[in-house]
């Protein structure tokens, strides 16, 4: 039962009628009950449109959306057991906190004392007990966010949609709210579908990340596999920072980068296939001259607090390293890498179709 799909998207395409632009292209997706799924991508990648179609604010041009196996494509938002936490909170300015949260329950015509009990309980859950009579405008951004979450989950929806809910908060508050959200998720046991362009947020909270670009799913998987094994240059570039460099796969476990043969662990490529080589900056190590796979000139060192951000020019490529140990700008150093930290990817056949081929 735990593995059943609560939301399913089947061949969903959204074309905006006014300018003909395609926001989502033939998307297929299944979200399991109780899962925390994140749509991650740059602005305009179709993630918010997908969320709005699940909520019912936008209708797919073609394809269907299923909830518990039932087609809900044509159902208006008020008929779906799905609630949304909006980007800018969208609290009702003319209602106080209590009435904001009770809005959905009152529409369901629940008895007054039951509403009161539920509102009190949910306010405690989001750590806002005692704020019932307050006006929405008197709250800070973080507090408004908590009320927005409370207003949605008090209806006990089957799915909670969150549209960049932490986007307007400052960094410190955002980190705190991430932990809060995960705690709330555990307490209410509702399926969360989360939209963000912040990869840190996605990696921290999600069970599964759907990376999107140009209306197409680029890769889906758990945070570790998304980060460690990006399947194309877009994902590698978007998630974290990466060195992406051209290479030639000579044979299994041997790749040629800038004329240097480097050991790796990837197999299954054509002999002499042209590939993208992805190396995370934190996986590169500064060594003695000649001790690594290549040497280069240190061009720039920036102190970032937790690490040094180092640029090393080797032949025609500037390597990006993150290291605990500093290096002297202007000196020559070696760069080394462990074979398992090299990620080899097929070159996309065309720049437009960077779609992931699922195996």
């Amino acid at each position, binding site marked *: 039962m735990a593995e059943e799909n609560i939301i399913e998207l089947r061949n969903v395409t959204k074309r905006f009628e006014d300018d003909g632009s395609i926001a989502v292209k033939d998307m297929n997706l299944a979200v399991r009950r109780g899962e925390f799924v994140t749509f991650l991508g740059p602005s305009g990648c179709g993630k918010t449109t997908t969320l709005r179609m699940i909520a019912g604010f936008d209708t797919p041009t073609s394809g269907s959306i299923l909830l518990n196996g039932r087609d809900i494509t044509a159902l208006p938002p008020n008929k779906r057991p799905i609630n*949304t936490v*909006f980007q800018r909170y969208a609290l009702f300015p003319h209602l106080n906190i209590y009435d904001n949260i009770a809005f959905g329950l009152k529409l369901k015509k629940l008895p007054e004392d039951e509403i009161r009990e539920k509102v009190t309980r949910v306010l405690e859950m989001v750590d806002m007990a005692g704020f019932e009579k307050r006006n929405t405008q008197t709250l800070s951004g973080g507090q408004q966010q908590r009320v927005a979450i409370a207003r949605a989950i008090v209806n006990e929806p089957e799915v909670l949609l969150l549209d960049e809910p932490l986007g307007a908060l400052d960094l410190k508050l955002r980190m705190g709210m991430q932990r809060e959200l995960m705690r709330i998720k555990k307490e209410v046991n509702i399926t969360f579908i989360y939209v963000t362009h912040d990869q840190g947020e996605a990696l921290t909270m999600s069970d599964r990340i759907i990376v999107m670009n140009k209306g197409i799913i680029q890769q889906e998987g758990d945070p570790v596999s998304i980060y460690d094994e990006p399947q194309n240059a877009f994902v590698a570039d978007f998630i974290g920072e990466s060195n992406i460099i051209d290479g030639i796969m000579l044979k299994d476990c041997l790749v040629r980068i800038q004329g240097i043969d480097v050991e790796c662990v990837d197999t299954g490529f054509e002999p002499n296939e042209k590939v993208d080589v992805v190396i995370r900056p934190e996986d590169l190590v500064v060594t003695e001259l000649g001790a690594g796979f290549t040497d280069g000139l240190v061009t720039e060192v920036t102190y970032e607090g937790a690490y040094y951000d180092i640029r090393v020019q080797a032949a025609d490529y500037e390597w990006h390293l993150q290291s605990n140990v500093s290096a002297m700008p202007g000196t020559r150093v070696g760069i080394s890498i462990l074979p398992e930290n090299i990620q080899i990817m097929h070159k996309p056949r065309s720049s437009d179709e960077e779609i992931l081929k699922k195996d």
Partner: protein
Amino acid sequence: MKKRLVDFISRFYFILIMIFLYAPILVMVALSFNDSRSRVVWGGFTLRWYGTLFSNRQIREALLMTVGLALLSSFIALIIGGAAAFGIHAMRRKGYVVMMGITNIPLLNADIVTGISLMLWFIRFIPLGFNSVLIAHVTFNIPYIILALLPKIEQMNRSIYEASRDLGASAARGFFTMILPQLAGGIISGFFMAVTMSMDDFMITYFTKGAGVNTLSTMIYGEIRKGIKPEMYALSTVIFAVVFVILLIVNFSPANKKAGNKREGMI
């Protein structure tokens, strides 16, 4: 020294403007209380002309017609113009510019052109009478409604409507509880602007009305051709007072103040 001179001139200029604008109206108001048929002799204070004004059946009917026509045409224009404003708002840039141009033409067009062209149109299709005047008034009222509503629609917070739908409100409920209150200021000012314009109009009414239909302005025009009677001063004073009060309501309505939008005040 120079500053004081500039101050004096600007103050003098302002007072001059006020005199030219309002002195004639004040004279008319004064004459409406003048107990004499002469325009140059003060015969003492009287409410006589107001008395005859309201006992005159012709004037009463014209007043009723004017107010009824203004309210009805503004209400119809509010519905049509409101729908149009939402439609224009949803348009892309090109359609938007074209529609706003079309909206502005009747505002800038000379009343006589609008009046005559509507008349030509009406005599082909419907008999001139109350209906033709009503349609004419609705026609020229729609742009005022659109101009008052469109900025409000543009400023509107749409996400609270979506939030209400998300929490279980029907489309109608969401519209009435979330969208309409946000537009209240624009609706009130647009409606009263239309009422004022309708009551104010002479030219278009004159060309599109049939026999027997008279608003205050067309009636006064007819009366004045027979010679000016003091009742007309009283009547004009009443119209001025009504318009003045409406202006005050529009400018100081709480909905308008909250939005902090001063543009609606500029009728």
